[in-house]
């Protein structure tokens, strides 16, 4: 239950951090450490070098400009909770944040760290997929952007290359008339969700996704198309949700088997749809 020995460096700038990352093959970036440290305590990960991002300037903070909410990678989850800018520009994120871990883990945990860790049940990846956020990543050589909808490639696996780090995530600001809903079921409030669902409805249409069901958050494209114009009558929703989930490949673990996860996904999808389409 103690991590094996490693070295640690504390860069002050992004370029310095990226330099270490490029030059040390057996290194790992540490942001809030709320996922990495348990994994190291269990010795499931044993990097030779930890690159501590906590002193890197300019990676934390949020701003909303030109219709985009920009969140620095090292922004602490707790600092976003209740922030009026988040409530106004990304109400779905505001609704999900109370479910992200506990006060003690949110105080350290970061937005970028959660996205890079890519736990299938984590709330922030689900929200970013739902909102079609764009993730900025940098390596020593270049900077590029990846849509969240293409960023998560498998459980705990992302599009990040070994020499890249997340610097920012850009969330399209919600219009004033946006209606949002976030629901999840966890054994204990703040624990990882077994399944979670998120939805945002605007004049432009519906965006809905479900997390914890499959290896990566599932954007419910079929449902989004079904609800594109006038919403279908309530009586048809269960059948449309079933059709959406027909080809899902649910996760199964000690907490919940695949059939239960699929059932739960249907229930939570129904709930979030009911909330955003409530008269």
């Amino acid at each position, binding site marked *: *239950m*103690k*991590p*094996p*020995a*490693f*070295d*640690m460096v504390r860069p002050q700038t992004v370029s310095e951090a990226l330099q270490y990352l490029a030059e040390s093959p057996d290194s790992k970036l540490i942001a809030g*450490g*709320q996922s990495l*440290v*348990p994994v190291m*305590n*269990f010795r499931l990960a044993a990097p030779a070098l*930890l690159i*501590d991002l*906590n002193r890197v300037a300019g990676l934390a903070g949020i701003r909303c400009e030109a219709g985009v909410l920009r969140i620095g990678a090292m922004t602490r989850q*707790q600092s976003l909770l209740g922030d009026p800018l988040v409530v106004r520009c990304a109400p779905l994120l505001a609704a999900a944040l*109370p479910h992200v*871990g*506990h*006060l*003690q*883990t949110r*105080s*350290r945990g970061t937005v970028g760290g959660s996205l890079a860790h890519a736990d299938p049940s984590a709330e922030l990846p689900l929200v970013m997929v739902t909102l079609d956020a764009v993730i900025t990543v940098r390596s020593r050589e270049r900077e590029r952007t990846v849509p969240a909808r293409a960023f998560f490639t498998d459980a705990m696996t992302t599009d990040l290359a070994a020499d890249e780090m997340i610097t920012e995530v850009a969330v399209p600001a919600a219009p004033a008339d946006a209606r949002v809903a976030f629901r999840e079921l966890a054994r*204990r*409030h*703040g624990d990882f969700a077994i399944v979670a669902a998120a939805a945002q409805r605007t004049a432009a249409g519906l965006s809905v996704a479900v997390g914890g069901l499959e290896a990566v958050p599932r954007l419910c494209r079929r449902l989004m198309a079904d609800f594109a114009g006038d919403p279908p009558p309530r009586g048809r929703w269960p059948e449309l949700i079933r059709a959406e989930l027909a080809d899902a490949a649910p996760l199964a673990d000690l907490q919940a088997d695949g059939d239960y996860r699929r059932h739960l996904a249907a229930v939570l999808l129904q709930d979030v749809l009911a909330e955003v389409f409530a008269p």
Partner: protein
Amino acid sequence: MKLACRVNGEAVDADIPPRLLLSDFIRHELRLTGTNVGCEMGVCGACTVMVNGDPVRSCLMFAVQADGCEVETVESLSQGGELGPLQRAFHERHALQCGYCTPGFLMTLEALRRRGALPVDENGIRDAISGNICRCTGYQNIVDAVMAVAR
């Protein structure tokens, strides 16, 4: 690796390996054994301390990461033998049985108390302590104690 921080108001300088967890540094190097270690995987909350006023799990932080920080442990809650308000409420309402989880509960709640953010209703309190596990299942008395302080 060098570490210079303040713990319960006192300057601390140390030269320690990066792998040393903050929880172990507090207990084994500083001999402040009020901070208890439960799961060492960030689930139970027993090791909660405050770093720069934020409640954090000290088993999920390396001690060297506290460099330049203000660390507070449960030992800081009583001044000159006088129990702090949360400690007093826990004592009066029997909000502990074996007491192992108590320092973690107290430090989580102390952070909220100082911000004036202690919830006053039962649901809010249960939400606030959801990151701390009590295996004696004494939650009702803990909720009562918090309510007494919050009101």
